[in-house]
């Protein structure tokens, strides 16, 4: 990779630097190719598409400047501060492979920027993001800009609570070990009365699922107000728990228009004995952090639906990568986050999704460019956040799901449970039998990737509901090219 440095255009000094007027960002000190990032620096990597004819280093310097101390013109008041410390430093610019002349894509550059730790308030995703993604995405000098990854220093991570419960304690509370958890989203999403809604919850849980779930836009509408939903769902949860001898849960979505109302709903969920509540990403970073604190205080698992993320995470040239959302949400303190299925109906390249899962689950993630992880990240003992795989998956894909996603994941089969031809309980049985069969086979050392379909067929001989599920959905798959793919693989990847 080429390092496009040009020492002649780096910072000016003293009086010359602070003369009134406009100075290129590089000359203001925001481009420092010799800078060695400190362990305590926060690092960010942006994908920059400069305006035609712009110097990529100058654009990188502009991003560094506008996301830290700079404004468009020189100000003498910088000299009252330790401004050299507070300036973010663009320290490396690489052209993105397979962009620019001779390719289908206009030239893009990876710009690495280092930020001094003291630029950020501890424990505040809002403050962090107001800097890093506050103004820069609208700057005229960049045609498009995407935040690809961040390295959060341990010192800063230690100012965050992290997941309220975490994967380990969640499993201990639920008494469920050694296999992925199973869930389903209640369908139809909208229109069921509280009484009818609870029926779906009861059938799914009694049949063998661990969790049922509200959808992201189930809040308190005319057809079903929230207290009715909570009361009926908790009757369903407790009745199913008694019927099976297992701990069961339903993600009660407490998303509302104000914090006061969310707290009110969360308190009611607790009063009814729910093990888990749910929020949507659209409530905002500060609201999420507040709910995470509440969840830690009230022994509650906190599920996050990533509603809205694809508006800014899906396109490759602009916005931010979902792995950054994963990092922020682990810091903000949620216990679950939807992070892709690979095989289902929603966007997801296998290598990219592995990167998201590792980001949520590992104590330490090494740099791995093929998985889109640009920085090594030490997670400083922050709890682990459980990834949730939801959207267009069914029992017949169990060998693929277990291979791609591993044990620490919640597999959510909404349509794949409720749409079962023999009913919801049968749908749940099919999913649970497929899961347990595949986990057992994998543990026995069998090659489930290749033998998986046969393993399921064998189980279907004694399990009628699994037979019916396989027959109903055997040919269903979602084969589309992913838009968010790795830049560092020898050949293009497709979704499965």
């Amino acid at each position, binding site marked *: 990779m080429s390092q496009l440095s040009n020492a002649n255009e780096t910072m000016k000094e003293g009086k010359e630097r602070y003369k009134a007027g406009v100075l290129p960002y590089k000359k203001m000190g925001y481009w420092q190719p010799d800078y060695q990032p400190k362990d305590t620096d926060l690092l960010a990597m942006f994908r920059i598409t400069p305006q035609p004819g712009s110097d990529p280093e100058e654009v990188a310097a502009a991003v560094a400047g506008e996301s830290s101390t700079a404004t468009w013109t020189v100000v003498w008041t910088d000299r009252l501060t330790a401004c050299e410390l507070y300036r973010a430093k663009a320290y490396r610019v690489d052209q993105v492979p397979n962009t620019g002349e001779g390719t289908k894509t206009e030239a893009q550059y990876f710009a690495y920027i280092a930020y001094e730790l003291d630029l950020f308030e501890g424990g505040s995703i809002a403050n962090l993001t107001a800097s890093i993604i506050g103004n820069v995405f609208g700057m005229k000098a960049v045609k498009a800009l995407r935040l690809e990854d961040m390295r959060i220093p341990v010192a800063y991570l230690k100012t965050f609570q992290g997941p309220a419960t975490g994967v380990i304690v969640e499993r201990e509370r639920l*008494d469920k070990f*050694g296999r992925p958890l199973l869930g389903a989203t209640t369908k139809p999403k909208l229109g069921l009365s509280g009484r009818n809604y609870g029926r779906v919850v009861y059938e799914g849980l009694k049949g063998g699922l661990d969790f049922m779930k509200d959808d992201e836009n189930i809040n308190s509408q005319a057809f079903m107000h929230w207290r009715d939903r909570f009361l009926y769902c908790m009757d369903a949860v407790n009745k199913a728990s008694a019927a099976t001898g297992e701990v069961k849960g339903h993600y009660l979505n407490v998303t509302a228009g104000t914090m006061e109302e969310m707290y009110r709903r969360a308190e009611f969920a607790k009063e009814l004995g729910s093990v888990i509540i749910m929020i949507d990403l659209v409530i905002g970073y500060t609201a999420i952090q507040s709910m995470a604190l509440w969840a830690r205080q009230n022994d509650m698992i906190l599920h996050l639906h990533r509603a809205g993320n694809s508006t800014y995470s899906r396109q490759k040239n602009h916005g931010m990568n979902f792995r950054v959302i994963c990092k922020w949400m682990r810091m903000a303190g949620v216990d679950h986050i939807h992070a892709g299925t690979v095989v289902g109906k929603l966007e997801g390249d296998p290598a990219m999704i592995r990167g998201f899962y590792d980001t949520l689950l590992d104590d330490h993630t090494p740099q791995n460019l093929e998985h889109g992880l640009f920085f090594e990240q030490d997670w400083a003992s922050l709890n682990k956040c459980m990834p949730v795989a939801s959207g267009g998956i069914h029992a017949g894909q169990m060998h693929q799901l277990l291979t791609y996603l591993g044990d620490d994941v919640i597999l959510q089969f909404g349509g794949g449970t409720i749409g079962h031809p023999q009913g919801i309980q049968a749908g749940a049985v099919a999913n649970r039998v497929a899961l347990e069969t595949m986990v057992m086979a994998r543990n026995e050392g069998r090659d489930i990737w290749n033998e998986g379909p046969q393993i399921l067929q064998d189980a279907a001989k004694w399990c009628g509901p699994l037979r019916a599920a396989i027959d109903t959905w055997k040919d269903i798959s979602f084969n589309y090219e992913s838009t968010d793919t790795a830049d560092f693989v020898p050949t293009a990847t497709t979704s499965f």
Partner: protein
Amino acid sequence: MMTNPNGIVTQGQFSFLPPLTDVQITAQIKYALDRGWALSVEYTDDPHPRNTYWEMFGAPMFDLKDPAGILMEINNCRKTFPNHYIRVMAFSSVRGVESPTMSYIVNRPKNEPGFGLVRQETQGRNIRYTIHSYATDKPEGERY
């Protein structure tokens, strides 16, 4: 009688599958040993979903690495408590886990009466729920 699809308590990793054979149990033991996990055998006659602490049939076998030896312990427990719930658990001591990593039932009572749901009506439409194990109406050791 329990009315869920299997008619049995479905705690553990493999309760939706036919009862595990000794060969199958041995394969799962090997899987745990290969990962450095310690195995333990626990039994109870109180299968309430929140009864965390089943009785230990000895401490976790940190130093026993032979699947046949562990299977022998499981079978000793089955002989001693033929009509109890017995589960095999695996424990990881790796930093960041330090918790059970496997749990599966290898023995259960012939008849599983299951649980009743006690609803206590409180203020408004609120209900307080108690899951009651029918078997625990009898004293310990006389339940199944």
